[in-house]
């Protein structure tokens, strides 16, 4: 019996009915990953340890978690004890962490099995997965096309049906945009909802971990486990965790959804607009109401982000110096030369570009004009959301301005072209708000995503609205043919 494209609930039933053991399931999953190796979703497989854990799980009756015995994959920036963690960078190509990230540990404590680490943009810096030291990931819908980024390997592995769900991280859209380009569901929780401990930091005030899966329901199953207070992350929220599955079936009649007038959706490709209008109709038929809202400072999101994120990145990535871990250059003259050569040989071009921009924004004479200014504008953006959420429940936008594109076709001459991919996703990171992307059809044979943004800690409402949409449409059930692989 094929396990490809099974949901968590279906796999759960199969395991509980003893029609498959976790050990068999993990072995089948590894076999499937091997047969689809050409997608390049994985950087490292966890074959022996994964099978060992599955055998252990098969032998215990203590846990009744929905994830018991279920194979998952982790984005390769979550530290995993004893399992290589590269951040898809040459500088960490041989790094084996001595501890496991809290988010992964929580999923594993619930009985899930990590079968591998997924490919990504180097240090999560990119929107196409093309900056990975380990090569491009193919979009399962079209060979030679990007899966989106930075969590591109996780998105492609889920879209190809290898695993039911995977972890990702989202600093400016890195869960939602690849979810949209691969035709799956992905949620970025509220900043502080999931512990960042053990996640290799890119931009600490924006980074947040979350799940990617083929349905809102499966995202809820993962997020239920990943969330929660962690004393090891001082920015982790100490709030009660609601069971996200409990409210997922609530009717959404009367739900007020805002459409942002400043996003000028009329400028998007006609096909993207048509998909958006069709989805509005689905929500209207379910009793939701649409209102136009204004977020006056939203046009500043992209420049604000590209000041703050590089600044935080330049600070966070200063730890990679070739001394305590990571790549060390050979033949260096002195300590300073060791730092310079190790970093210059270890980092790829996009990472260097962002470190340099961040260093510039934080340097004497420019700090007020770029970094402080961006943090002030960030408050304006957050204030706009606060005002808007007084009269609405959710905000709806496309996830991305277009579809997946061919390798090397965007951002080669001018990186700013690729930065605009994040136009609709960045503002929720700046304001710390939760947001979800769900598939809502295809344009020229490639999936497009619909984004819903919620108020602070409203993951339950986001997943509820996404689930109801999926109960009344079939976009999330569409599969790529994958004949090319």
């Amino acid at each position: 019996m094929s396990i490809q494209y099974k949901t968590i609930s279906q796999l759960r039933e199969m395991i509980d009915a003893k029609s498959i053991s976790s050990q068999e399931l993990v072995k089948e999953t590894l076999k499937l990953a091997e047969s689809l190796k050409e997608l390049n979703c994985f950087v490292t497989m966890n074959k022996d340890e994964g099978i060992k854990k599955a055998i252990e799980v098969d032998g215990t009756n203590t846990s009744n978690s929905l994830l018991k015995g279920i194979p998952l994959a982790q984005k390769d920036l979550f530290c995993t004890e004893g399992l290589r963690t590269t951040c898809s960078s040459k500088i960490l190509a041989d790094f084996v962490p001595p501890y496991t990230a809290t988010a992964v540990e929580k999923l594993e404590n619930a009985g899930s099995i990590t079968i591998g680490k997924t490919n990504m943009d180097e240090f999560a810096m990119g929107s196409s997965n093309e900056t990975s030291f380990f090569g491009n990931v193919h979009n399962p819908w079209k060979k030679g096309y990007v899966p989106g980024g930075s969590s591109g390997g996780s998105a492609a592995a889920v879209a190809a049906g290898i695993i039911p769900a995977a972890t990702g991280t989202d600093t400016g859209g890195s869960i939602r945009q690849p979810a949209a380009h691969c035709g799956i569901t992905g949620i970025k929780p509220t900043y502080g909802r999931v512990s960042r401990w053990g996640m290799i930091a890119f931009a600490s005030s924006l980074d947040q971990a979350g799940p990617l899966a083929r349905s809102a329901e499966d995202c809820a199953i993962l997020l239920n486990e990943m969330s929660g207070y962690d004393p090891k992350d001082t920015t982790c929220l100490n709030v009660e965790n609601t069971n996200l599955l409990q409210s997922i079936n609530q009717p959404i009649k009367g739900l007020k959804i805002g459409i942002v007038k400043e996003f000028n959706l009329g400028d998007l490709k006609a096909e993207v607009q048509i998909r958006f209008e069709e989805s509005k109709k689905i929500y209207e038929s379910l009793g939701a109401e649409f209102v136009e809202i204004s977020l006056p400072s939203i046009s500043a999101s992209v420049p604000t982000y590209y000041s703050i994120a590089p600044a935080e990145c330049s600070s966070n990535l200063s730890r990679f110096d070739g001394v305590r871990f990571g790549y060390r250059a050979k033949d260096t003259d002195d300590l300073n030369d060791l730092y310079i050569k190790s970093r210059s040989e270890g980092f790829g071009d996009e990472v260097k570009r962002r470190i340099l921009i961040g260093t510039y924004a934080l340097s004497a004479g420019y700090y007020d004009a770029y970094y402080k200014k961006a943090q002030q504008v960030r408050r304006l953006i957050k204030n706009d959301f606060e005002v808007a959420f007084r009269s609405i429940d959710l905000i709806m936008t496309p996830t991305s301005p277009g579809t997946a594109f061919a390798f090397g076709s965007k951002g080669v001459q001018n990186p700013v072209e690729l930065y605009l991919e994040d136009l609709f996703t960045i503002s929720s990171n700046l304001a710390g708000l939760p947001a979800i992307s769900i598939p809502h059809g295809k344009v020229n044979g490639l999936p497009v995503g619909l984004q819903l943004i919620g108020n602070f800690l409203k993951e339950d409402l986001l997943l509820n609205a996404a689930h109801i949409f999926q109960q009344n449409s079939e976009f999330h059930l569409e599969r790529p043919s994958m004949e090319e692989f």
Partner: protein
Amino acid sequence: MDQETVRTICYLARLEIDKDKAEKIENELEAIINLIGGLQAFDTENIEPLYSPLEQKAFKHEDIENSDNKKDEFLKNAAASNDDYFLVPRVVE
């Protein structure tokens, strides 16, 4: 952004740029700085910077000793170490 500024930033970031890529990188940085320059159009007088979306004070850990000594595991990831230390090129003659 002139070449001298790029050289200074590179040194501050401890990064070297290949000579054949220098011009391309200068142009790219220029394009990004122009993008960020768009922020100047926003009036931020009397607006407090928002450094974290949570705006809560970081809490303190309980100061509890634990016996986790992973020295050997940490040293294993270093390119050069002896039993107790990370090794680097000599800094004092």
